């Protein structure tokens, strides 16, 4: 295989693997966190507003990790 095609193969494979494997962790983490927020709201409905605000902060921070994998995939395809 000539080096150009091998480089193209490597880039695309890397991009796919990066996004695919990089979405596992945040997916699991988001599920755990939202589940715990639901449990907290079910146990004590008065604090639903506070719990919901903090849950959104947590969602933003953990989804950012999945988006780092997306940015790495973008860099692999378009820049490198």
């Amino acid at each position, binding site marked *: 295989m000539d080096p150009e095609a091998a480089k193209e193969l490597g880039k695309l494979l890397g991009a796919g693997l990066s996004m695919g494997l990089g979405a596992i962790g945040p997916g699991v983490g988001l599920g755990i966190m939202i589940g715990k927020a639901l449990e907290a709201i079910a146990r004590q409905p008065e604090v639903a507003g*506070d719990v919901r*605000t903090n849950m*959104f*902060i947590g*969602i*933003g*921070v953990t*989804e*950012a990790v999945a*988006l*780092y994998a*997306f*940015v790495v995939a*973008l860099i692999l395809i*378009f820049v490198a």
Partner: protein
Amino acid sequence: MKHPWRWIIGLLVLGFLILLALIPGGEKIEFEVAGEFDRHVLIELPTIGPFDMSITKTVAYLFVAVAVIVVATIVVARSLKEKPGRFQYAMEALYELARDGIVASVMKSGKKQWFPYIGGVFIFVLVSNLIGLLPLPFGEKHQPAFYAATANLNVTLMLALFTFVFTHYAGIHKNGAVRYVKAWAPSGAPPVLKQVIWFIHVVSEIFRLISLSVRLFANMVAGHAILAVFFAMALIFQSYLVGLALQGASVLIYMFEIFVAFIQAFIFAILSAVYIGGALDQDH
């Protein structure tokens, strides 16, 4: 058969859908998702020093966002009523969200001083994100194009730099530079571990800057890329049936993008408030 009309209409609809699937679709048009994010110059202006002053698509969208905010607030402020109408109610709801939901619920001191910055950044990022969902004619050859000003890493990096600079300015202004930097290592820690923890804290401060900017940038870029693919799915598959079936999916994705625009503005503002509040009350 109890209701023969229902069966007939059902069979007609099914036949219509099968006919749609069998009709050959239009010609294949080349569609590149990455073309949406090119730097597209609208007005050429001279270069002053290292800064190229020409008006690009991003600059035009930033101006549009500022114009929308200024016009909306002037319109509301001119006609304040005791019993608010719908528009004034929406503006008041946004203001209360920024003041009570973001600043008062996270920061302990310096609420009044930093509320203008955090409220401003919230409204600006929100309006920029939402304007990116409307097709405005800033595309190539004045075609309507979807583009958000915050879908550009330069814009979000600049907003995150504001937060970064204000965080350290707030901490140094309140505590003095030496005490502020020394407080990054906890006081009751063994000698070598203290330096390591201090160094890790420095790295995490720099990482906050990167994560704040990349979070907003990647959310907007991913949202627009998904929207572009969904809208053009009929062209990619060359089938009318796929185009019809994806109308509903496109609308759902569009509603999700509006939700993401709100959430990302809220998260940017509340994380800025957390960082500035954390720098202000370091010894809680």
